[in-house]
């Protein structure tokens, strides 16, 4: 029913309807993915037991001091602001044997200096990995047992900020190392090790894509993606510069290259999905250029502050556009690659929104950033998409090569056939030319002389009649030879047509009737028929006729022509010459008649001619006459069989 409706509707409308239903499906899928992502991102990460948490703090910031509970966002955004210092207490039970205790910081921005009882036990600035605010790096430090004493101990955490985001301190845990460390390890795996693994992956992809692009310059998509990957790798392995050394500015510019990276990924998306490179295309890279210029002029601080206002929105914009482009590609192409990429973009976009909400403190949480991590999801997707595309391209090449091989073979066969035809035609033309030449020569010479002999013999006495007969026979044979050389296209019926005329001319003076019976469709056509086959058959028939005239004393000769169906379904032509003469007695071997050596020789001649053409010859003779039955082969032999 719906199919009928689709057929009746104009094609444009059908396409539109189909596209809108596809769009609906796709959008629903993306919403579902985004919701699932949001749900997963809202799940709290496992934390050590509550009794080890330190939540009550006195926050001293500048001249003010107040009580706060962790997790706590402080307003400080740059080193110029008052750096917050949190002071709290924890209880250390003096137990035997003494257990090693550790302080575990699940999350902080940008750095923290932890002191226990006034002695600094951890300064996260020393760990380059921990200095990246975009990575939710946890930290752990074992508190030297000498510093701890039974009962209440003092914990001081100074949070250091260098932007671009504000200071944050998640609830620190102080507890036995064997209890706290597993939680640290889990977070470290997720936020430290995994990014390294992904970065390694990215590096490999960057190399592969660069090679692809170098080998296939006409596909700049791969070049764009390779550049994006390279930027990503460079960014991942750089650490935040904390002091003003020579390359600090360049370093921070490189770290702030996420807009460039996202711009390159967007460019890849545009090119990969076969869109024309838009005129405004270079605008994609404008934010990163601004950041570089700002960094070169204004130094680290300006890069960081600008990054928050230009960098992150650019990343978001690029993601949105990427989502639109891949959605459009899904509608247009409906292939696995675009759907996969579209879903991955949705995941990254959801993470980005989550991170933004967290940075702007719109949604209260523990300030854990997933953008970077979810970017890896996109990487997986891109890797898979590229592999898929590569495999498909290989398949296409294979099938194309296969088609090509078939086509070449067909063309070759055709060429061979046409070559054979051409050869055959050339052979026939050569034969015809030769025949024409021979005919002229015979006509001008021998033929005329023979006719003169016939004419002269008729004017003489009876003895010369034999000469005339011989000369006439010679002329007849001459005509037979020339006739047989004509190209009859394998149709023996055409040769028999001329033979009938000659036979009638021969029989007329003897007053013998010639009956000519053709059973339709006559004889089968033999493309392999050659002039020498025709001559052998015509001479054989001539001899049968001559025997009937000279030796049998026949009054009526019947020639029957027809086709026999063989037991194998093969067609065989059959020519029978029957006379009403007196017949003769056959020898026991059925080969030659017992009497009349001349007739016997004639019969042996007929036998040998039949054998040479691969034909069968049957002789039956009795009081009612003689019958010569010639069964033609299904296929004439190429060369003469020994007679």
């Amino acid at each position, binding site marked *: 029913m719906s199919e009928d409706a689709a057929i009746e509707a104009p094609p444009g409308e059908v396409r539109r309807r189909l596209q809108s239903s596809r769009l609906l499906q796709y959008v629903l899928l993306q919403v579902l993915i985004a919701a699932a992502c949001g749900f997963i991102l809202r799940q709290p990460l496992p934390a050590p037991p509550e009794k080890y948490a330190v939540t009550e703090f006195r926050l001293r910031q500048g001249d003010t001091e107040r009580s706060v509970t962790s997790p706590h966002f402080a307003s400080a955004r740059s080193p110029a602001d008052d750096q917050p210092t949190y002071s709290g207490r924890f209880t250390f039970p003096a137990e035997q044997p003494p257990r090693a205790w550790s302080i575990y910081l699940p999350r902080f921005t940008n750095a923290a200096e932890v002191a226990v009882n006034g002695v600094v036990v951890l300064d996260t600035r020393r760990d380059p990995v921990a200095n990246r605010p975009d990575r939710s790096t946890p930290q752990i430090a074992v508190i030297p047992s000498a510093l701890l004493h039974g009962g209440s101990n003092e914990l001081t955490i100074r949070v250091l900020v260098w932007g671009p985001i504000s200071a944050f301190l998640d609830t620190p845990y102080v507890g036995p190392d064997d209890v706290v460390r597993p939680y640290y390890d889990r977070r470290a795996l997720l936020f430290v090790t995994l990014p390294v693994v992904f970065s390694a992956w990215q590096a490999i992809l960057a190399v592969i894509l660069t090679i692809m692009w170098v080998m296939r310059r006409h596909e700049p998509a791969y070049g764009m993606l390779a550049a994006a990957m390279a930027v990503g790798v460079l960014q991942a392995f750089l650490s935040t510069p904390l002091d003003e050394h020579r390359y600090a500015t360049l370093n921070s510019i490189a770290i702030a290259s996420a807009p460039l990276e996202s711009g390159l990924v967007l460019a890849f998306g545009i090119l990969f999905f076969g869109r024309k490179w838009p005129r405004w295309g270079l605008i994609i890279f404008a934010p990163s250029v601004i950041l570089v210029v700002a960094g070169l002029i204004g130094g680290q601080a300006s890069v960081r502050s600008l990054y928050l206002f230009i960098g992150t929105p650019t990343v978001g914009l690029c993601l949105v556009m990427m989502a639109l482009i891949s959605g459009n590609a899904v509608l247009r192409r409906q292939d696995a690659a675009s759907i996969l990429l579209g879903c991955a973009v949705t995941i990254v976009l959801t993470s980005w929104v989550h991170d933004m909400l967290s940075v702007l403190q719109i949604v209260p949480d523990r300030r854990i950033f997933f953008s970077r991590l979810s970017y890896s999801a996109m990487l997986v997707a891109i890797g898979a998409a590229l592999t898929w595309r590569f495999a498909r391209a290989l398949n296409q090449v294979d099938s194309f090569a296969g088609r090509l091989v078939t086509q070449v073979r067909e063309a070759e066969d055709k060429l061979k056939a046409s070559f054979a035809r051409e050869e055959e*035609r050339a052979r*026939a*033309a050569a034969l*015809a*030319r030769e025949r*024409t030449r021979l*005919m*002229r020569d*015979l*006509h*001008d010479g021998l*033929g*005329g002389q*023979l*006719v*003169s002999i*016939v*004419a*002269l013999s*008729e*004017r003489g006495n009876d003895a010369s009649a034999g000469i005339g007969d011989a*000369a*006439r026979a010679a*002329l007849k044979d*001459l*005509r037979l030879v*020339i*006739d047989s050389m*004509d*190209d*009859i*296209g394998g*149709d023996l*019926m*055409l040769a*028999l*047509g*001329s*033979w*009938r*005329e000659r036979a*009638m*001319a021969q029989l*007329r*003076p003897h007053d013998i009737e010639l009956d*000519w019976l*053709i059973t339709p469709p*006559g004889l089968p056509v033999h493309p392999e028929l050659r002039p020498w086959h025709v001559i052998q058959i015509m001479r054989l028939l001539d001899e049968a006729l001559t025997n009937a005239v000279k030796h049998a004393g026949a009054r009526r000769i019947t020639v029957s022509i027809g086709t026999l169906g063989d037991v194998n379904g093969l067609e065989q032509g059959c020519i029978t010459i029957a006379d009403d003469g007196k017949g003769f007695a056959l020898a026991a071997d059925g080969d030659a008649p017992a009497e009349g050596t001349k007739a016997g020789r004639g019969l042996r001649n007929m036998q040998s001619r039949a054998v040479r053409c691969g034909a069968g010859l049957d002789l039956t003779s009795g009081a009612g006459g003689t019958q010569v039955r010639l069964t033609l082969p299904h296929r004439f032999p190429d060369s003469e069989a020994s007679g």
Partner: protein
Amino acid sequence: MTPLSDEPLSQAISVLLVEDDAPTLWRLQDALTRAGYQVRAAATLAEAKAGLAHGAPKVLLTDLQLPDGHGIDLIRETRQRFPDTEIMVISILGDEESVISAITVGATGYLLKDAFPTDIAATVRDLVAGHSPISASIARFIVRRTQNNPEPPPGPPLNTAKLTPREIDILWGIAKGFSYAEIAGHLGLSRQTVPGHIKSIYRKLEVHTRGEAVFEAVQQGLIRL
């Protein structure tokens, strides 16, 4: 195909016989004279043209290779001057090389030089009666020319474009040795109409432009300049 008959022939039928070989000329002349034809003999082209000057013969029988010219020219001239004259070529072998070129200038069939006297008389009688004889090999040559070959087979040029499918069917029948009655039976014709068709075939194969015919004859080496 040419039934024998011993009926006496009309005395008025005049035959111009052109043959340069004396013995052959004698035997043909004998055969025709005995059958009751009025035969004028010529051994050269000049003699033949002189013979034509005396008036139109009913039948012209001519050899092609004459000592002072070519029989083709004589046929063409006779055809143009005396459209009612029946023309036949005298041929040694009855080969299409000579016969077809004669047909294209207006001849109707051929006579073999060594034919039996009775056959010679019968052929001429049939010709006069309006029956145009055609041999299997000539029919074969014509029908093979009607087939679409990219490269025309060697031999004299022949334009078969005017032939109708029915006429081509008749030619096929003759080429395969069927009698007129058999052909008429196969094609659903009356036996009497077959000779008319054959006459029509002869007329259609004629080339009417003199220059064209001479050019073709020269091309084929039939006329040696």
